């Protein structure tokens, strides 16, 4: 579904290389986890894949469902089904959560040539998903993420994800800031989205989340590339042994 080949990205006019020949393939229907020490380049990978400004891709390619992902604008990537649950979700002052999300959903639908979703259908869907995620209805009226706690912001990311029904999901440290109850709720939401035509990349620092969302593959990212891979049990080993032996 997504094929990353030798991806190399720099910042500061090439003075600093953050992704250093990273290769990774996630087939449709699979969930892959990326683990690694702080500063390894995990968030940078999520930003380069979603098209954030400020990174120069100096080498490599990303094929997403047969398209050259790196040639697309961020909103085109989103409309093609790419979704990032941000490590640090942004606050959008003055824009109520529901208005924001309906704008996003209908912009995506429009760009795919689909009909827009009418307000009643949208509201019904939003209420049902909010209830599943234990999000209070009044939170959806507030400006998106403004004044929300870290955990509330993370839950709001999952809410958006379930509303938008993306095809390929990247979750960047979604577990940080969540207590065990919230973690279970979020994991239930994510597991409900597992499907044969959907892929996921779960970036995490701790093995904890992977008890709830069991991955097909686990990779170690260190110094800007994938240095080791294994199955779900590999995550437990990593947690016990640490990343030291993978450090450059």
């Amino acid at each position: 579904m997504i094929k990353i080949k030798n991806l190399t990205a720099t910042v500061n006019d090439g003075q600093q290389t953050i992704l250093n020949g990273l290769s990774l393939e996630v087939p449709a229907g699979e969930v892959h986890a990326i683990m690694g020490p702080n500063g390894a380049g995990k968030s940078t990978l999520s930003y380069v894949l979603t098209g954030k400004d400020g990174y120069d891709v100096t080498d490599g390619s990303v094929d997403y469902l047969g398209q050259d992902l790196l040639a697309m604008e961020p909103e085109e990537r989103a409309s093609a089904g790419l979704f990032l649950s941000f490590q640090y979700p942004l606050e959008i002052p003055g824009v109520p959560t529901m208005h924001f999300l309906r704008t996003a959903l209908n912009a995506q639908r429009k760009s795919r040539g689909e009909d827009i979703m009418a307000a009643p259908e949208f509201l019904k869907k939003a209420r049902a998903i909010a209830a599943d995620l234990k999000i209070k209805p009044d939170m959806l009226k507030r400006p998106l993420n403004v004044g929300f706690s870290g955990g509330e912001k993370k839950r709001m990311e999952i809410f958006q994800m379930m509303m938008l029904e993306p095809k390929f999901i990247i979750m960047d440290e979604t577990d940080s800031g969540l207590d065990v109850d919230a973690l279970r709720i979020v994991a239930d939401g994510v597991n409900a989205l597992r499907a044969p035509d959907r892929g996921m990349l779960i970036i995490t620092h701790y093995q904890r989340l992977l008890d709830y969302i069991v991955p097909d593959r686990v990779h170690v990212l260190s110094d800007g590339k994938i240095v080791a891979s294994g199955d779900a049990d590999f995550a437990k080993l990593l947690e016990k042994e640490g990343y030291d032996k993978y450090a450059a």
Partner: protein
Amino acid sequence: MTNMPHNALIEQLPHRRMEAWKWTDVRGAAVSEPQGLSAACNPTIAAPSGIDISTEGVAPSESVMGKLAVTFAHNATVITVPAGFKSDAPVLLSDMKSGHARLIFKIGKGAEISVTETHESGAASFVNIDMRFDLAQGAKLSRTIFHNDCADMTRISTAQINAWADAEITQHTLSFGGGLTRFETRIASLGENLKAEIHGAYLLNDKRHCDMTSYIDLGAQSAHIRQSVKGVVAGKARGVFQGKFHVRSPAQFTDAEMRHDAMMLSDTCQIRAKPELEIYADDVACAHGNTVGALDESALFYMRQRGIPLRQARALLTEAFVAEAFDGMADNSDFMSRITDWLEQNS
């Protein structure tokens, strides 16, 4: 009409070497003798029944532009709102397209009146509207001002609002600017407990210019003032905000806040801001704030990641920023739809 030699007339116009006009050079804009510079303007006034409209030779205001208005408009149109008057219908003021006009509102004790002003011209001209509002005790005035001129228009609109005890003033101004335009609001509290909400926004493109100047002169105690002005400036446009709270020694227990927040949408636009406090009373709470910034790039990326195209993301963030100025309006739907339209064209 007075036959004044062109040069002598130009000499009388305020210019950039005057502190209060340093960013709005009326003389500079008038050298080519625009239409209307030495003519009268007769605005259309529609008022609910019970309001009297007459023409009187009242004394001119002290300001430069006020004196000039007398020279060309002679008499003032006096709109008298009787004591205790109440109506759901506003006084509508329009057709201020060229020339000088003098308007005086006398608002009686406890009367409540809304005034909706449309300052709009599609053809280049010079307009000078000199207004005065006298609010008797407990009178309530709500002004809604819409401004949209063509890019070579010169417009100066000045309102002096004199408020006796317990008066309330609400003012919302939306300006899309013009060639060289200024909306000046001057409030004087002559009795205690003045309540004033003075809010506005300017959205400017091309080479448009709008100046929002205010001078709030507090001479009596327990005034409560809230002022916020939002600016959005694109292209080579220029936004000017000058705000002053003058708190005289009898004006104890004044509670006054002034904010000006502006957003620059291009590298070539300009914002000039001068918020000022001059305070002679010791038991007061006064604050002012002024920020100039650009749209948050990280927020824009976040919105795009959700599928919102860049232009639409910009418009949405800017609209939310401007909307705060009109939160307190009884009905802001007209202003908001005009803002949405403008942002669709200019984001």
